[in-house]
């Protein structure tokens, strides 16, 4: 995964300028900001609001509404474990419990060393190869505790 850049208002202004004139620009703009900075830092709210002629409350409202947008950067790796029904039928609940135990975190948390963030996701569309997960954007199916263990081992 590409390492996030530290906050830089000029870099943010570049991104904002690229999107600000498109109709309904806020989501594509926030996606790209998060792609650059790893999250939507509080410092980004004011320039985004000004460029789109929105209030800061409106921008904050959108950032906080969507599960994808982070206020703080994630760990160096992100493991999203599907916890929806199709994966439940194939044992994703106990799989998640094992991962939580092994890493010493709950779903939604990051390990103390900042290495891995583990999150629940509700459906990756891999429902016939359950249980499924996404690790740093790579999809994995037919997961077993051993396979998750092997995936976690490979992480730097």
């Amino acid at each position, binding site marked *: 995964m590409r390492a996030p850049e530290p906050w830089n208002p000029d870099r943010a202004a570049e991104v904002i300028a690229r999107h600000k004139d498109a*109709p*309904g*620009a*806020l*989501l*594509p703009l*926030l*996606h790209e900001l998060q792609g650059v900075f790893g999250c939507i830092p509080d410092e980004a709210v004011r320039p985004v609001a000004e460029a*789109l002629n929105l209030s800061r409350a*409106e921008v904050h*409202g*959108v950032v906080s*509404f*969507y*599960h*994808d*947008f982070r206020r703080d950067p994630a760990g160096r790796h992100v493991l999203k474990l599907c916890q*929806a*029904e*199709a*994966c*439940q*039928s*194939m044992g994703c609940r106990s799989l998640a419990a094992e991962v939580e135990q092994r890493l010493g975190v709950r779903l939604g948390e990051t390990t103390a060393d900042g290495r891995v963030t583990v999150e629940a*996701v*509700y*459906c*990756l*569309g*891999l*429902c*016939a*190869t*359950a249980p*499924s997960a*996404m690790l740093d*954007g790579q*999809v*994995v*199916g*037919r997961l077993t505790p051993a396979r998750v263990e092997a995936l976690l081992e490979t992480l730097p």
Partner: protein
Amino acid sequence: MTVRVFVPGDAAAVAVGADAVAAALTRHAPEARLVRSGSRGLFWLEPLIEVETPQGRIGFGPVAAEDVPGLLAAGLLDGGAHPLRLGRPEELPFLKRQTRLTFARCGIVDPRSLDDYRAHGGWKGLERAIALGPATALEEVVQSGLRGRGGAGFPTGIKWRTVAQTQAAQKYIVCNADEGDSGTFSDRMVMEGDPFVLIEGMVIAGFAVGATKGYVYVRSEYPHAIATFGDALTIARAAGYLGANVADGGFAFDIEVRVGAGAYVCGEETALLDSLEGKRGQVRAKPPLPAHQGLFGQPTVINNVISLATVPTILADGAARYRDFGMGRSRGTMPIQLAGNVRHGGLFETAFGMTLGELVDDIGGGTASGRPVRAVQVGGPLGAYFPRALFDTPFDYEAFTAKDGLIGHGGIVVFDDTVDMAEQARFAMEFCAIESCGKCTPCRIGSTRGVEVVERIMRGENVAASRALLTDLCNTLKFGSLCALGGFTPYPVMSALTHFPEDFAGPRLRVAAE
């Protein structure tokens, strides 16, 4: 002649190792031409690779990267004998029993090849639509009986007609690719396996109603679909199928992809429109209908991926041919998705009318775990749980409604006898609480109260009174919510309570599943 070998680039195939298989083939058989197709939808056999031979395409699966040298030694490139050899995929019962209209090309063609698309009947629907003219093309869709495949089942042609009859300087076609229901993946498969058919369907929609701009709102959980569909847009635009003069038909249309941000409720059409406008994905009160005042306040056709991807086959072969499939008011075919704890999981497109039992037991082959099937959830997280006693229900919009269920987007999730139905009811309420947009009170607050009540039942506190309270709460959600999220969450909860009362009898000493 260079042999073509097809390895699915479908996300589910990739999730079980298709990329590694492709890499092994490139390394060990550089003479073959590798094509990353979509998936045929037989996911228990993925990665399922196919080789083009004089006898037709021969399938092998499930193939692991380690199998590749052995397969090549056994004559893979000539379709040689091997324990993983499946023969011609079309002859496999799971495919042979299907009627593939919408998914006619998926898994067969190179999703990035316009030549493949054309060679397999692509653009015939658009050509005929242009020849018929907008009004007649629109009537074809009305006459086909096609209903919204996203879940609501509203007649697609009627929606189009409303937009066509509304005067406005700008109209929009919005494709709902926010396929958030667990147990469904047909939208993803089309976008990854046959993206031009969605483009063609949207172009026809734009032509028929007089819209010049289309948006595809696709969920962020689908990076492969986003990438493949984005490539297809570039290719179609370069070939003149999008732009100022589409296919020399004298009309303009173009498509833009917008990526969601992890909110399930944005699959609801009005929340999706707000999200496209850059707002919180909150549900709008109707009226006004999106057909009158939709995206940016303009008349908007908003259809699911499968609805739009079915339009080309309707136009190409005529409304009557499509309408002749199906039963009652459910016309045509439905791509049914068998998922979860099922032996033969995958995509099964068939005419409406097959019973739930046939789908789960015959086609799906029962559970993957080998244990008895106890419950199936049909129609995603807002769909009802069906017990075996209701397996004679035909797969049809009205038949499912009559049994207090819904077919939704066509997902069937199978559970074996280790499932705890009280836990599933609790999860349905929890999911509603997590994903509620917060606009209406029954959904926002009722879902959290619902989790608490189910937990009280599970702990054995005032069980009879709590069950009555849960029923009452479900009625409040069902009749008081603004959209299907709050309105349909009672389906899984009440069906679990009604059909599996033994799981709501109070505190249980649960036998650990071995």
